[in-house]
């Protein structure tokens, strides 16, 4: 009885700690004052209009979206190839190769960023969006592989053989049977990679050159107190977008499970 109450309070405390700061975002986004402190100064939407009128911010958002979408697509493509190879084929040194691909998962990002910067500068590559994409693909791919591996692993091998046996080619088997069945995994991989790339700071900071990305821009703006409320407004919009994204991902995941008759285990929501 008391133990149960303690657990309840613990859970509640955890949730407050997790979400209270996020709840502050919309509160101060609509607060008519540049100081992030109570008491509130009154209601305003001027921070939102200020944010939408900011050309640098718009550029940062555009860059970040380009980077996140490209990184997500590339990492997921690489993830599909790697997961397919890891689950279907045996080749010498397979364990080691897969291990090395997964390593960036635990490698400190700062190390990846610094070493990449060194190599790129050494090669004379000019920094910009594409170098950030390169770095992000590197760190997103292990996540993509982890997600896609489980999708490919749960695929019964005889499904492929059955399609092949019924006259399809290897390629059409992949398109007609494998892709639809791992589609939920692909969607998850795209969304996770997109999210990781979108708020990645260290690699973007080192490799972006003069191109701003969203997290780098936000960080730079915190030096100016008058810019902070607009950042709060931006944060509010990002939180809403994240919730929408998560809901969409969950919808596709559930639909995928329902379609293939699997049992619902785990998931986000």
């Amino acid at each position: 009885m008391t133990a149960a109450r303690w657990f309840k309070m613990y859970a509640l405390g955890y949730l407050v700690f997790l979400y209270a700061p996020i709840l502050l975002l919309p509160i101060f986004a609509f607060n008519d004052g540049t100081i992030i402190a109570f008491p509130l100064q009154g209601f305003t939407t001027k921070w939102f209009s200020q944010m939408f009128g900011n050309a640098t911010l718009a550029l940062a958002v555009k860059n970040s979206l380009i980077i996140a979408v490209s990184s997500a697509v590339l990492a997921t493509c690489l993830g599909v190839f790697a997961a397919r190879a890891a689950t279907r084929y045996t080749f010498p040194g397979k364990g080691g190769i897969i291990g090395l691909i997964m390593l960036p998962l635990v490698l400190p990002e700062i190390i990846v960023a610094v070493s990449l910067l060194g190599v790129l500068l050494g090669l004379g590559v000019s920094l910009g969006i594409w170098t950030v994409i390169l770095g992000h693909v590197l760190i997103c791919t292990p996540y993509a592989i982890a997600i896609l591996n489980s999708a490919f692993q749960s695929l019964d091998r005889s499904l492929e053989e059955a399609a092949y046996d019924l006259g399809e080619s290897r390629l059409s088997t992949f398109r007609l049977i494998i892709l639809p069945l791992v589609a939920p995994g692909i969607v998850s991989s795209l969304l996770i990679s997109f999210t990781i790339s979108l708020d990645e700071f260290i690699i973007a900071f080192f490799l972006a050159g003069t191109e701003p990305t969203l997290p780098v821009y936000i960080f730079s703006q915190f030096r100016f107190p008058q810019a902070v409320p607009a950042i709060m407004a931006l944060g509010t919009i990002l939180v809403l977008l994240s919730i929408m994204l998560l809901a969409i991902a969950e919808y596709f995941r559930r639909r995928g499970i329902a379609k293939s008759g699997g049992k619902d285990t785990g998931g986000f929501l």
Partner: protein
Amino acid sequence: MKRPIIELENVQKYYGDYHALRGITTTIGEGEFFSLLGPSGCGKTTLLRTIAGFEDPSSGVLKIDGKDMDGVPANVRPTNMVFQSYAIFPHLTVEENVGFGLRRDPRSAADKARAVQEHLEMVGLKGYGKRAAHALSGGQRQRVALARALILKPKVLLLDEPLSALDKKMREQMQVELIRLQRQVGITFILVTHDQEEALVMSDRIAVMFEGQIAQLDDPETLYRLPKSRQVADFIGTMNFLPAQVLSETPDGFEVEVAGLGRAALTARQAPGRPTGDVAVGFRPETLTILYEGQQAADRESPGIVEEVVYYGDMTYYDVKLDGVAAPVRLSMRNVFGRPVLDRGTRTRVAWAPGALVLFR
């Protein structure tokens, strides 16, 4: 012999160092219901997958319908497979599953739809076409898998333990349906199973496999009555063994002395392995009969004592220790109204016939 549809000539298969198929040579006829029977790991699936084209033989020749299959991939071979897991495409409907193989067929959509309906009807799934495939029961999946494979009109249908995932009742029902289906379509069925009863019930011929080799290939009755080795005899049903000695070999048979039974003359047919010296004699439980008071054996009889009684309702199994033999032999009696089941320890006489004995090395 019917026209051969599958010819295997010294087919060998290595997985790395592991020798999975050790020289398979056999011919399977058109329209035959052929079974591959053997314990787990003996290479049944490997042989089936080799015929299907999923595995390449390391050496040897495989011909289907007279054509050498070397370099012919699975998707163009005139064979289709029913997988052990059924491999029903879970994201498609029953209809889409059954019609999957017709995608490249030049026929019109209406003709294809008609073919799908015909085949659904053939396997007893009329009206199930629009269902989601993942919502079917095990038996229904099995039928979808059959229809999906048969719609391509293969020359040979390959079935890898198709009934092992079903419960006993469903299995027995599907056995009968498979036989009916095979007669209806008239093509060769090759069935892999480790269930000897299933093989005996369904097959025209059975190849018993051990360790990558065919130990015996015969029709069910010959296989049951005249197994060529103790290993085959042990694998198929129950067989009693008694030590024996060959006393003399005559042009048309053997004279043997069997422990507990005495002297008997056997024909050459009863000794498929042509053994000599110290041998064993085998016989099935149902070839022995307990003699009750006043009954006479039609041929021979031997005395013994009932050691164990296992009552099955319709049958009773007795373990009887024949005089002069250490190990008991098992015999089965159909329970008939008015005939008492014997108690343990009863002295009794057992009737047998020399013609039911088989001689082993």
